[in-house]
């Protein structure tokens, strides 16, 4: 907005929120969230998360990293509404999250594609569930399948696809509902390194990496769980570092690298940020591995 054209009162409000973005109501508000669940196998209580406070701005790309067992996935499932927190509340656009809803799209770690549905059947499931008529949802699914580069594979079943193709299919399925919040649980973990780098670039493109301005509300808000620190630095505006046993908020790292980021992988600033985040979780990650191998 050109400030000379705006009424003074709006200009003041606008500059205030630009200086203090946290004053704008966060699209996602995680307040004092803890989660304890009882293991169905051993019957013991496991405290997966404790006292997590986090506000996510509209259009922000937030990455969540931490050693294994830090409750990253638990946090995501609470935001998705698959489970209720034991303590605290999760609010999405001011309303307490109780159930999943199409506005909060989820991409699962192992994709969770429906094996009995084709690529087309998977992608159109969201619109189908919301009652969109056949012609419109087919059209929408077709557009998305082209967008993620799966044209020609519409009638294949998931088991006939490569890992990278399944990943694209899962992404298209999530996008079909045009969610405002993308909840992604290690979506790129199960593909090889080269495929991952290509998919990272595509993800950034789809999210709007090259579009002007961050946090303007035009981009979707993303909560991206990953164990790849370089991936977090490449993609995110902020990186949330979780500690383990129980999972709690350890640090929030601002990623001030300019966008578009697709060529940022080799810059010195990029490397410095990766090392910084790694230094925050290294000790616990080492301990996590030691515990797992014992």
């Amino acid at each position, binding site marked *: 907005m050109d400030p000379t054209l705006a009424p003074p009162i709006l200009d003041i409000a606008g500059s205030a929120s630009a200086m203090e973005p946290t004053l704008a109501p966060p699209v996602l508000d995680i307040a004092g969230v803890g989660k304890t669940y009882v293991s169905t196998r051993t019957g013991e209580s496991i405290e997966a998360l404790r006292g997590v406070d986090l506000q996510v701005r509209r259009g922000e790309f937030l990455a969540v990293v931490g050693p294994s067992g830090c409750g990253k996935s638990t946090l995501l*499932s609470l935001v*998705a*509404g*698959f489970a209720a927190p034991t303590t605290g509340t999760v609010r999405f656009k001011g309303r307490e999250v109780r*159930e*999943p*809803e*199409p506005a*909060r*799209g*989820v991409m*699962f770690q*192992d994709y*969770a*594609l*429906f*094996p*009995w*549905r084709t690529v087309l059947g998977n992608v159109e*499931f*969201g619109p189908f*569930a*919301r009652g969109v008529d056949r012609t419109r949802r087919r059209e929408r699914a077709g557009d998305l399948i082209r967008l993620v580069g799966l044209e020609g594979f519409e009638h294949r*079943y*998931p*088991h006939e696809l490569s890992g990278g193709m399944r990943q694209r299919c899962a992404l298209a*399925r999530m996008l*079909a*509902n045009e969610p405002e919040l993308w909840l992604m649980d290690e979506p790129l973990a199960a593909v090889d390194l080269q495929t991952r780098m290509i998919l990272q670039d595509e993800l950034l493109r789809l999210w709007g990496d090259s579009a002007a301005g961050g946090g303007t509300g035009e981009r979707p808000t993303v909560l991206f769980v990953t164990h790849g620190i370089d991936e977090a630095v490449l993609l995110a505006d902020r990186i949330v570092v979780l500690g383990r046993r129980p999972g709690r908020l350890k640090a929030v790292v601002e990623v001030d690298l300019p966008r578009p980021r697709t060529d940022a992988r080799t810059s010195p600033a990029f490397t410095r940020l990766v090392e910084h985040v790694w230094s925050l979780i290294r000790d616990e990650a080492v301990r996590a591995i030691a515990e797992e191998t014992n």
Partner: protein
Amino acid sequence: MTWTLRIGLPSATLALLALVWEIGVRAGGAQGIAPYPSGVIAAGLRLIADGTALAALSGSLGRVLIGFGIGALIGVPLGLAIGTLPALDRAIRPITDSLRSIAPIAWIPMAILWLGVRGDAALFVVAYAAVFPFVVNAAQAARLVDRAHVNAARALGAGPGLVLRSVIVPSTLPLVLTGARIAMAFAWGSIIAAELAIGIKVAGHGRSVAGLGQLMVETLYVQRDVNALVFYMLVIGAVSFAIDAGLRHAQGVLLPWTRR
């Protein structure tokens, strides 16, 4: 091994066996007690031509299909409920496990007492035999439903009804169809046993062609035709093979995503 050998070798073995068998029975003069190939073929042709075999077969098959259907209607929902609710599983496990352990044909005397020497008694036994494979497999199928698929459907906007139709049903279908194949094999096995057990009485009541089992009893005690008995045995085997092949084919058609 060439195609001719693969087909030729077993065929030659069978032909040789039939020949030795035929000669053996005729040479020994045991035609009344021992069946022989040409006699079995002749009996088969006669019983097919006069409609006896077909009438008995359709009587048995009809009861098997109804019993199988009853088994599915009770067994599938019950199994899905048991697999979904561990508390229900715990609560009724003593009942299901003990009932399951009683061989279906052990119920025949009780069934005859309650339902009389009619087809209904056999139907009861068949339904009893069919219900447990459905319960066991549907329960296991429900336990194996991937939570992530349910969550994915919910996150995409599916309510409970759509989750049931679009996730639970297709997830459980492969195992339920496996259960159906076992149930069908059990049902077909018990119908013959049940009809054999109640058949002789039915023959006395003038309902001699109620089923293959009854017909076999009549053939044994009234006609004393060993060749016809062997023909019925072959029919029973062929039907069971055809049913299983049909169900296997149905699995392929109904579950295209499992074809690899």
